């Protein structure tokens, strides 16, 4: 017990040190500094919300387009940014491993933590802002939204650990990830509700774990305006598999690390 506590203490210390370092090296100290972590995804989400609104998209569910875009696009940013920032992260931080307590998993967890925090901050700030000017209403069931958001964070963590450590084996992984992420965006549940889709397509897309979280979050946000389709147990299984494979791959990647 004693040594476990000590290990956790060290790990916490290392993660905090890496996080502060990452924030300064990525955003610098000028203008907004660390606030860019939240501002960047906010700009993305606002842009998408604006484009969707301007394009006059109608979805007929009586949901304001802005709320639809915020719940959808924030979700995409969460998993997409976590993974993107983790690919080649070990390689970029290899010299930090000369410090005994810094491990490659710390490097990955740091980047995941920052991306999850950024996406969460952006989601929260946008929701509160648009609710305060009464363009949208606050969530019907905040707890369900938070629950779905946590599931999505877990998914992002597992996926980022897997892709991030796999990218240490071959540059092909990153090359494939970019088009995959691009193609996954329209399929990920951000831009549609499962209920609008014809059945064969809907069941096919429900193989994607993140669709379940987006549906769950939207049900919590808007209430039962349409029939939402999700199976959180299925998503939990997918998340577990991703997390375990990620951890295993990090271990394998460690054995191959060649420091400078």
């Amino acid at each position, binding site marked *: 017990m004693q040594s476990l506590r000590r290990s956790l203490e060290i790990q916490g210390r290392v993660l905090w*040190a890496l996080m*502060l370092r990452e924030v*300064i090296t990525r955003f610098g100290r000028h203008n907004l500094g660390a606030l860019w972590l939240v501002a960047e995804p906010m700009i993305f989400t606002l842009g998408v919300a604006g484009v969707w609104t301007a394009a006059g998209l109608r979805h007929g569910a009586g949901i304001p387009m802005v709320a639809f875009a915020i719940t959808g696009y924030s979700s995409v940013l969460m998993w997409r940014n976590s993974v993107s920032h983790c690919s080649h992260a070990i390689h970029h931080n290899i010299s930090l491993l000369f410090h*005994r307590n810094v491990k490659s998993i710390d490097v990955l967890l740091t980047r995941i933590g920052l991306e999850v925090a950024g996406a969460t901050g952006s989601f929260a700030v946008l929701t509160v802002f648009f609710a305060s000017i009464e363009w949208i209403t606050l969530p019907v069931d905040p707890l369900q939204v938070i629950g779905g958001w946590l599931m999505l964070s877990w998914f992002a963590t597992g996926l980022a650990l897997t892709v991030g450590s796999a990218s240490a084996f071959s540059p092909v992984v990153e090359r494939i990830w970019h088009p995959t992420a691009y193609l996954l965006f329209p399929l990920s549940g951000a831009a549609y509700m499962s209920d609008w889709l014809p059945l064969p397509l809907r069941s096919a897309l429900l193989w994607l774990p993140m669709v379940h979280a987006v549906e769950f979050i939207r049900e919590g946000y808007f209430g039962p305006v349409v029939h939402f389709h999700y199976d959180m147990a299925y998503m939990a299984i997918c998340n577990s598999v991703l997390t375990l494979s990620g951890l295993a791959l990090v271990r394998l990647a460690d*054995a191959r690390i060649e420091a400078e």
Partner: protein
Amino acid sequence: MIEIQNLSKTYRTRLGERTVLDRVNLRLERGRNVGILGCNGAGKSTLIRMLSGAERPTSGRIIRNMSVSWPLAFGGAFHTHLTGLDNLKFVCRVYGVDYKPLVSYVEEFSELGVYFREPVSHYSHGMLSRLAFALSMAIEFDCFLIDEAMVVGDVRFHERCHVELFQKRRDRAFILVSHDASVIKLYCERACVLHQGRLHEFETVDEAYAFYDEQMVPVPIEV
């Protein structure tokens, strides 16, 4: 105590696997020191990387019962956007040490002046190595890892490093790797020779030196 047990390291190359360290054993007690002699490519730096934990052994293990430093004066972990002070704060956070009492020491020793609070990207080579050395001295360790090739600087800098490390921290253990027998002879109480992946231990530095000298007969390099 640090103990290296049957440590081997192989690297993948395009021409198949290459064994750099082959069943290496070494034991170092608290407060003692050892020099490791080896010519270029003998695996000295690889051994240092294993000891610091940057790389994993292919087989065998390293038991550490004392705190081990990062390679002395290693500046590779500096990020160009960070200032000298940021880098001090970073290593202090990693090792759980309060940075405030150390600021004046590092500032003084590194002789960076106003540049201490400027990004590292504006530093000269000499400034970088002074900062790197000062940071190594800011955190206290039981055992220092020293790759002689990494500690570069002018004569005065070397003298100051000498005072800080070998006089003020005489009670600490260290492992020093070098291709230069005279350096080992100057600082170490015993020596080993790393040759073709094997580590040969000797009672005295002189015996090690004699063996090393024998092996130094130029042989065609295998590619």
